[in-house]
């Protein structure tokens, strides 16, 4: 790759890259997000390349690592559940659930003739065909800044990133702004950390920039997206790695740091591979490393893989892990901005936060304030999962209501069931219910309801979800992930888990609820780090909003959602039973009584709820109450 030595060379490179992009008669954009890869999109991309290789009138070009045969593998196109996703440009056809055997028809019809293959279009709830991405409600109602390029360009092509405006922000900062101006711009933009707490990024940057005499400073990116049910940061790292790299480089310039680290969780091998590749490309092009664009400014970037510890998402644990220690948080102060990585001033933000930076620097803080709410400007990415019709990755302005996300974008509850709650913010968050459907989601509004926006995982739950079991599930997660350093978290989460396990097993008492609340408050108040402080939130919020459900589990041993195994009550329908005796013969504990050709019955006290009778009944007479 030719090195880009200065600003003029960057402009030339951009013009060339644009020309190259425009010269394609047709582009086949195959989604290469983690979801689509899992659905088999790699085979689709390979098949398309193979098919296109034989065509005389399709531009065949090679640039770098990824061959461009008019076929590009993009970042997440969003509709993960309908993958593999394929988009055909310039006609802008969006195909869903593409199978290898569909490829030949796509090439024949769309690539060569520009005609649509209608059976591969998405059909909305009214069974209308949606030929283009903007026809699909899920995609049409989003505002994309962070995910702007995901799905539109080759995820690992530096030239394509440059063609669509990449590195304009860095060149503006390096040649038209001094570092303090960049810090001021970010500060004025009101950009808040997208990783959880919503702390103002500008404040951190200012504090780090103020350490003028530090021998070395660091810019660290938290890509340890550990919240189960969240995959936004992973999608940015694998789908638009250069945006993150440019954002971090801008941070380095602004605060005077020359070294940067990206800490990626071990479960994201795609992200690690693409970041390594993108960093090497950017270095080779002179956009990263020493003397960037001939400006004299240097910034080096390193990738660290996590080794499987949720607590490393906490700032001081993350830096400890990079230093080669156990990932355990420490008491603060000193804060990371004063003594972070290797006890030097450190800017620590998450992936999504840095990915906002290039646009803010380029378009200005006033532009950023036109999106979102007054105190939470900009957009937020959410991963929408659970019992929802359209699962996937979305980006909406801050302040968008839950109703818009669940019903307009998400298409409502899967299978037409009833909305019960949405768990927001992962194991550190809480649940919002029907009454909150019209609350605009931003950092401050959600906090009022004992929940947090967190990193942006939204797990939608319908009436088949037991909230007590959900609380137990999260508590077992945080208990397992507690690093064990401070006793409120180490012992408190364990005791809470024991109580919750008792309740779902039908052995809880009403005193347990008071005890649970008491411990929850104590752990929240006295834990050392964010993990412990937020661990009780799922318990607190479910106790508040679904107290009746807890009570039912305890007093009448009933789980209305039929989830808790120990509380299931197996019954035989006396009308339906034909008295074949199969269940009685199969029952491992002889809990079924009845004689031949007479209706049978289950002895509740003896039944161990193994389900053998249910699965074996020839007439479907056994059911769960």
């Amino acid at each position, binding site marked *: 790759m030719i090195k880009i030595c200065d600003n003029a060379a960057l402009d030339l490179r951009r013009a060339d890259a644009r020309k190259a992009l425009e010269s394609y008669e047709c582009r086949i954009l195959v989604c290469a997000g983690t*979801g689509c890869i899992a659905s088999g999109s790699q085979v689709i991309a390979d098949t398309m390349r193979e098919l296109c290789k034989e065509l005389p009138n399709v531009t065949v070009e090679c640039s770098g690592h990824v061959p461009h045969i008019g076929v590009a593998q993009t970042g997440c196109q969003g509709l993960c559940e309908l993958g593999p996703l394929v988009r055909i440009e310039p006609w802008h056809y969006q195909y869903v659930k593409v199978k290898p055997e569909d490829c030949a028809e796509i090439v024949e019809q769309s690539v060569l003739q520009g005609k649509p293959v209608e059976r591969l279009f998405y059909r909305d709830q009214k069974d209308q065909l949606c030929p283009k991405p903007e026809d699909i409600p899920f995609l049409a109602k989003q505002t994309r800044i962070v995910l702007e390029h995901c799905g539109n360009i080759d995820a690992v092509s530096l030239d394509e990133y440059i063609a669509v405006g990449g590195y304009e922000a860095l060149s503006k900062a390096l040649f038209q702004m001094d570092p303090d101006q960049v810090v001021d711009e970010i500060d004025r933009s009101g950009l808040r950390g997208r990783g959880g707490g919503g702390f103002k990024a500008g404040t951190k940057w200012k504090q780090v920039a103020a350490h003028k005499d530090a021998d070395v400073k660091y810019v660290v990116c938290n890509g340890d997206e550990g919240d*189960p049910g969240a995959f936004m940061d992973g999608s940015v790292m694998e789908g638009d790695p250069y945006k993150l790299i440019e954002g971090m480089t801008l941070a380095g310039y602004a605060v005077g740091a020359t070294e940067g680290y990206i800490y990626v969780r071990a479960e994201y*091998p795609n992200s690690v591979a693409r970041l390594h590749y993108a960093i090497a490309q950017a270095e080779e092009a002179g956009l990263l490393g020493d003397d960037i664009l001939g400006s004299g400014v240097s910034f080096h970037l390193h990738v*660290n893989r996590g*080794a*499987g510890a*949720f607590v490393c998402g906490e700032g001081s644990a993350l830096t400890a892990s990079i230093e080669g220690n*156990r990932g355990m948080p420490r008491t603060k102060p000193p804060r990371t901005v004063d003594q972070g990585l290797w006890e030097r001033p450190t800017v620590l933000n998450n992936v999504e936060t840095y990915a906002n930076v290039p646009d803010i620097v380029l378009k200005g803080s006033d532009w950023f304030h036109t999106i979102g709410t007054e105190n939470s400007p900009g957009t937020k990415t959410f991963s929408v999962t659970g019992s929802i019709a359209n699962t996937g990755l979305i980006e909406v302005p801050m302040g968008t209501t839950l109703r818009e996300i669940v019903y307009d974008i998400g298409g409502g509850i899967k299978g037409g069931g009833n909305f019960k709650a949405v768990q927001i913010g992962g194991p550190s968050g809480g649940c919002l219910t029907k009454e909150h459907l019209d609350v605009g989601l931003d950092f401050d509004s959600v906090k009022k309801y004992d929940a947090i926006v967190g990193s942006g995982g939204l797990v939608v739950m319908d009436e088949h979800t037991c909230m007590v079991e959900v609380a137990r599930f999260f508590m077992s997660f945080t208990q397992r992930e507690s690093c064990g350093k401070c006793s409120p978290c180490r012992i408190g989460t364990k005791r809470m888990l024991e109580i919750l396990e008792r309740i779902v097993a039908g052995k809880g008492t009403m005193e347990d609820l008071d005890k649970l609340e008491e411990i929850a408050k104590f752990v929240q108040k006295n834990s050392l780090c964010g993990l412990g402080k937020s661990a009780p939130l799922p318990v607190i919020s479910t106790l508040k909003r679904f107290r009746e459900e807890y009570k039912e589990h305890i007093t009448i041993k009933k789980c209305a959602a039929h989830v808790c195994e120990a509380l299931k009550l197996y019954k035989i329908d006396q009308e339906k039973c034909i008295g074949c005796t199969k269940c009685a013969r199969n029952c491992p504990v002889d809990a079924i009584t009845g004689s031949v050709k007479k209706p049978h019955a289950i002895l509740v006290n003896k039944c161990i709820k193994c389900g053998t009778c249910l699965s074996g009944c020839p007439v479907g007479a056994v059911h769960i109450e």
Partner: protein
Amino acid sequence: MLDPSYFAAADGFIARYGKKSSSIIPVLEDIQEEYRYIPRELLTYVADQLGVKESKAYSIATFYKNFSFEPKGKYVIKVCDGTACHVRHSAPILAAIQKELGLDGSKHTSDDMLFTVETVSCLGACGLAPTLTVNDEVHPKMTPEKAIGLIQDLRGDEA
């Protein structure tokens, strides 16, 4: 006594990240990836080479979930039990796999050393829940039946 090739491989990993104490995690990650476990003698060796106390190296190797002192099977199956997979009923999938392989909560690796079964808190493919991975390859929209089929396929490949 460990085969000398292990130490040579460790030297290679150390060279990759530099002979400094902060390299310990990436070096152990590479060893884990290469051998599917961390041989104790190798941990001692790496600690010594990097100037890290053996006790500290041990504390690191036991702190992070991805490190294991027990050899893992050829196929490491990670059943996702993240929130999204959990609400879409991942628990029966894990149970079915464990039953098929004769494993349980304390026994993770099958006797023939073919399979290791673990749970993982999130794989980032929540849109396709419930999921599992076999050696990092994600398998979407699983059911207990599909999971059993997958295991039988893998066994078939071995036969």
